[in-house]
């Protein structure tokens, strides 16, 4: 058995999601190889070369991979694996992997196993369904297993190795029916939501976007990432990529602090793998208290300044 991991990166560095995916691959089998497709991505490749567990690295450097267009990525990977004997193709279950990997499964005529959270054996996996309110144990009967991996469920691999990479030239046509227009990156100096050790999120109780400043001071002191509930995002308090929950980002930090968040099941689905959950809410009946290790009943506008001072 040989596993191929499709690496997510920004042409500069390897995304943490890929490090977790490599760890998941290693749990299935020792023979792990990686493919990285991009443009002018030397520093990303150098980063990848340090990753533990990899036996081989394939690089594809071409203008068509400057931006992650799913059509080009999936045709290239399908072309590369044609005639080779990969048993599993793993990608992170991020918007990158979710966009591209099902296309690969369709090209190979196999049924993808989405968003696995646990590995039972080389063909049996656990994955959450119904927003994590149930866990399905599934066995794949396909010859090649195309899988997306939930990054927060696997520790990122270390970077203590040094292996060579092998450059590939894949003769494929650029898909002319899709073109990249632009990418608007949300600006933030804070750690990424999905990989931060501490996350502090605000909900509808924050009342407006300006009040999120009350969380900023605390986030700065703790080195925390900032998030929000769907209610706060829908109300326009903060940008959409702050959303934590079933349909937003799944996080599993050491500490999750929920402020003014009632705790809808869809939100809980996105945070319940956190090591510790603390909440601040003025409604002591709010469901969030049932999921929190430490709950503080109080008015967040009084509590937050005190908290910032005490830290």
């Amino acid at each position, binding site marked *: 058995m040989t596993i191929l991991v499709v690496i997510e990166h920004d042409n500069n560095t390897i995304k943490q999601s890929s490090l977790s995916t490599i760890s998941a691959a290693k749990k299935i089998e020792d023979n792990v190889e990686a493919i990285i497709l991009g443009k002018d991505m030397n520093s990303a490749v150098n980063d990848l070369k340090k990753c533990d567990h990899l036996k081989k690295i394939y690089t594809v450097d071409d203008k068509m991979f400057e931006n992650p267009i799913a059509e080009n990525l999936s045709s290239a990977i399908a072309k590369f694996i044609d005639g080779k004997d990969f048993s599993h193709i793993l990608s992170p279950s991020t918007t990158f992997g979710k*966009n591209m990997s099902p296309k690969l499964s369709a090209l190979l005529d196999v049924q993808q196993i989405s968003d696995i959270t646990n590995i039972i054996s080389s063909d049996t996996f656990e994955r959450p369904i*119904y927003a994590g309110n149930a866990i399905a144990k599934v066995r794949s009967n396909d010859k090649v297993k195309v899988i997306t991996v939930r990054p927060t469920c696997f520790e990122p691999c270390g970077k203590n190795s040094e292996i060579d990479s092998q450059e590939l030239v894949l003769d494929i046509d650029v898909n002319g029916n899709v073109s990249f*227009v632009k990418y608007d990156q949300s600006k933030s100096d804070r750690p990424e939501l999905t990989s931060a050790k501490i996350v502090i999120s605000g909900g509808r109780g924050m009342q407006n976007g300006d009040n999120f400043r009350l969380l900023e001071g605390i986030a700065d002191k703790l080195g925390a990432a900032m998030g929000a509930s769907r209610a706060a995002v829908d109300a326009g308090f903060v940008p959409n990529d702050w959303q934590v929950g079933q349909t937003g980002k799944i996080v599993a930090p050491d500490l999750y602090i929920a402020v003014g968040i009632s705790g809808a099941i869809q939100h809980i689905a996105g945070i319940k793998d956190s090591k510790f959950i*603390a909440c601040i809410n003025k409604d002591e009946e709010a469901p969030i208290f049932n999921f929190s290790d*430490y*709950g503080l009943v109080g008015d967040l506008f009084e509590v937050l300044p005190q908290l910032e001072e*005490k830290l």
Partner: protein
Amino acid sequence: MKALVCVKRVIDYNVKIRVKADKTGVETENVKMSMNPFDEIAVEEAVRMKEKGLIDEIIVLSIGTDKSQETIRSGLAMGGDRGILVKTDNEQIEPLNVGKIIQTICKKESPDMVILGKQAIDDDCNQTGQIVATLLGYPQATFASEVKKNDDNTIDVTREVDGGLETIRIAIPCVITTDLRLNEPRYASLPNIMKAKQKKIEVVEIQTFGIDIKNRLDILEVNEPPERKPGIKVQDVESLVNKLKNEAKIL
């Protein structure tokens, strides 16, 4: 332009699901069912495009048992023109096979735009749109938060991706999957619900497709997720900080 909207009948968003005692799945008997919320957004987007004169006809497609006719009807009440039900007894057809069925329908109907939710809230697979696009060779725009038709038979789609928003331009015919913030679906008015009863739903038996719909994945068991241990309430900020420092040892 002709739009094909694919809708799935799922357990209602607000129902707290129960895992069956024999671990074979989730209880669906006597549970409120609705259209998958992401598919509702897809219907709404198609209807808005029709209202702007960009689309002439909206077909609402579902694959499922006879009961899925209700789901198609709610799409028709929102503004769909006609429905197609691909009838099957197997309630858990996998995305790959769903994709193949939609591919066959597309060959017959030749829609300019296939639009559907980015994922169903039951199996949370997030695959069908991508599979349909691949099988048909249409470009895809997943996780759409804005859809803008250009004059030259292309569509600009803003996509919700990790770390921000990406815009891509895709040529028609295409596949679009919808994210939450694309629009807010309307409630169908009573007159429209009555009118939808007159709209035609074509029922096709799945056997006529000649597609092997056997599942590739065996569901060995379905379990409750591990419960979080109940926590405690703290009295004030000081004791919260204290707990985080000394008990959780995080700060």
